């Protein structure tokens, strides 16, 4: 069972995630957070195997969330899957960082689940198997 945190401020998008992850409850345990600061609090209290992150959010943007998350002991190596409409060039800096994958909206169920699985593999090498 992999723990996933989804930080997304759009209720509609959360509904789409819920639909995509329907029937995967054996594989994934998912926390949804519509508010980035609240998402950071969640990161302090839990260990996640993957963070799925939106970029265009208010009042805290996804890229700020990303930097905070990387500075927290518990989440500094957690793989992050960025899901955004922003173009690749704007996210080039984020992509160069460790343990980051990028998926451009719109997403399709099968493709997206494959990306989630790929992203989950990112940390296998560096996390001591427990």
């Amino acid at each position, binding site marked *: 069972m992999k723990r996933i945190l989804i930080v997304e401020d759009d*209720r509609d998008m959360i509904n789409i995630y819920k639909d995509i992850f*329907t029937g995967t409850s054996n594989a994934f345990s998912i926390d949804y957070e*519509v508010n980035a600061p609240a998402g950071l609090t969640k990161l302090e209290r839990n260990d996640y195997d993957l963070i799925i992150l939106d970029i265009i959010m208010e009042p805290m943007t996804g*890229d700020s969330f990303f930097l905070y998350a990387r500075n927290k002991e518990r989440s500094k190596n957690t793989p992050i899957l960025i899901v955004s409409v922003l173009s690749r060039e704007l996210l080039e800096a984020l992509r160069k960082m460790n343990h980051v994958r990028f998926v451009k909206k719109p997403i399709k*169920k099968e493709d997206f689940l494959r990306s989630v699985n790929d992203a989950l593999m990112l940390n296998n090498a560096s996390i001591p198997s427990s």
Partner: protein
Amino acid sequence: MFTMPIPLRVLLVEDSQNDAVLLERELTRADYAVVCERVETAEALRQTLDKNHFDIVIADYSLPSFNGLQALAIIREVNADIPFLLISGTVGEEIAVSAMRAGANDYILKANLARIPSAVARELRQVRVRIEGRHALEALHRSEHRFRNLVEQATDSIVVHDFLGKIVDVNSRTCSALGYTREELVGRTISDIEATYTKERLTLLWKKIAAHGTMIVNGILRRKDGTHFPVEVNIGTFEADTEKLLIAIVRDVTERKRQEEALRRSEAQYRLLFESNPHPLYVYDNKTLEFLAVNEAAVKKYGYSREEFLGMNLRTIYSADDFIRFQKILRKPGDSNGGVDEQGEWKHFRKDGTLMSVEIISHPIIFEGKAAELVLSNDITEKVKAQEMKEKLIRDVSHELKTPIAMIEMAVDMLSRALEADNAGAVIRAHHIIDNNIKRLHKDVYTILDFSARTQGKGNVPQRRVRLRDIIEEIQNDFKDSAAHKGLVFTIKIDAFSARKQVFYNDIKTVLYNLVDNAVKFTSQGCVSVNIKKLVKGLQIQVADSGCGIEESNQKKLFLKFYKRHPSLPGTGLGLSIVREIVLTYKGTLRVDSKGEGQGCRITVVLPIGEQRRSDEKNSHRRR
């Protein structure tokens, strides 16, 4: 010592062949190359005189058919100058005297013929002197005549006067210029024709001229008819007989003054155009690249004082790369291709070290005798910035539009799966997502079009008028869900008077929508409250939130076009700038209060809407 014999043509009036030979011998001995012709009768004398030219006539007093005195009379009829010597064997004193009176030059006794050569030499000398003297006199007459003509026909007026100002002589030009006859002028004084005459001044001037020589002075002459004209006068002195006089050569400078004035005026106009031109202008020396002139706009734009500019060259204002590029296109000295040169876009330094984008138009001119360029330097920094803004807008807007489109695509994907699985709940959720995002697309497209129309002055399309209460209800509905979802307390307060007020729907809805939208967006907990009330000065709309607030340095930027605190923040960056445009149209005021980041924010808009006035204003605005 050998001397060249002097040719001498002698007419001898003599009946004695012996005497003739004797005489010739005397002259030859005195080194004359004598060519002698001898006549004995008056008839022969006349004929010979007609035919030939002689240097001297030597005549014997006593001749068989006539005498020496008669010969003299004949000769003097023809030629007054030719020397005439009378010789005689025995002649008394009376004859000698009467001969001399009749014009003989000398009287010599035959016994004393040795005196002949010296007498001849003396007479020839005298005749030469006489002729030279006469020529000199003739020349003098001629030159005087010429001079008089010159004076008369001179285009300048010439006035001769004494040191008391009394006019002694004038030329005809003076008469025509002043409208007097010569007779009227001679005898008058300078005070009659010089309008600026004062005795003290001119007496002093004339004294100076007498002491130091010619001077050039300006004056104003008065014509007989009382009109005036400006003159330049060249005054000197000259000696006439025993008297020292002043000669004034007077030139009418009316035309010159007029041209000078026209030139001064055109120069002044040019200077004015240069100085008051709103665009920065400067002139630089094409050879040294030094600044020769700058206008006020250039001083303001570049930050250098005029003095600093004139001590600098172009190198100072060009960025290093641009200066190299500039040197390549520099007009070569003598390049006759003298057209206006649009040199395009360049980076120029201000004094404070900041760079600005300028568009350069250069035009060759001659300035203070130097090949120079007149340059118009148009600051297009704002234009370039606006272009960048536009590009940013297109980027932001396309991102903003991409999100709902992506949402709809994903919802459609979800919908097809829901239909396949016959999952009614998922169908409803997908439908809801599609519905929401179509609304969002509508709103975004409307905002962009509204912004575009308003910033291009096309925003004043006829608007329907509604009660403010109706708009409040719409706003309540628009934000009810999103506020509740975030757990925000969303309240709207409005006084009864304002609620009944008729307002233009588009304007007020847009103001309220954008203010509330902004407040809800940036508040994650607490409240968003709208307070609308009637003030003496108009309608006050206040939107307060307990959101993230805004630091003071950014408060001014809040209403700028495309301003976003962060590029990853949602939105077009247009909403609040549209609010500002509308408030400006109403000549209203707009204020931001925030104690800083995280301290919440309050925006207050006051629209001076009177009972009737606003609609008048709007109408007049619309007609424009």
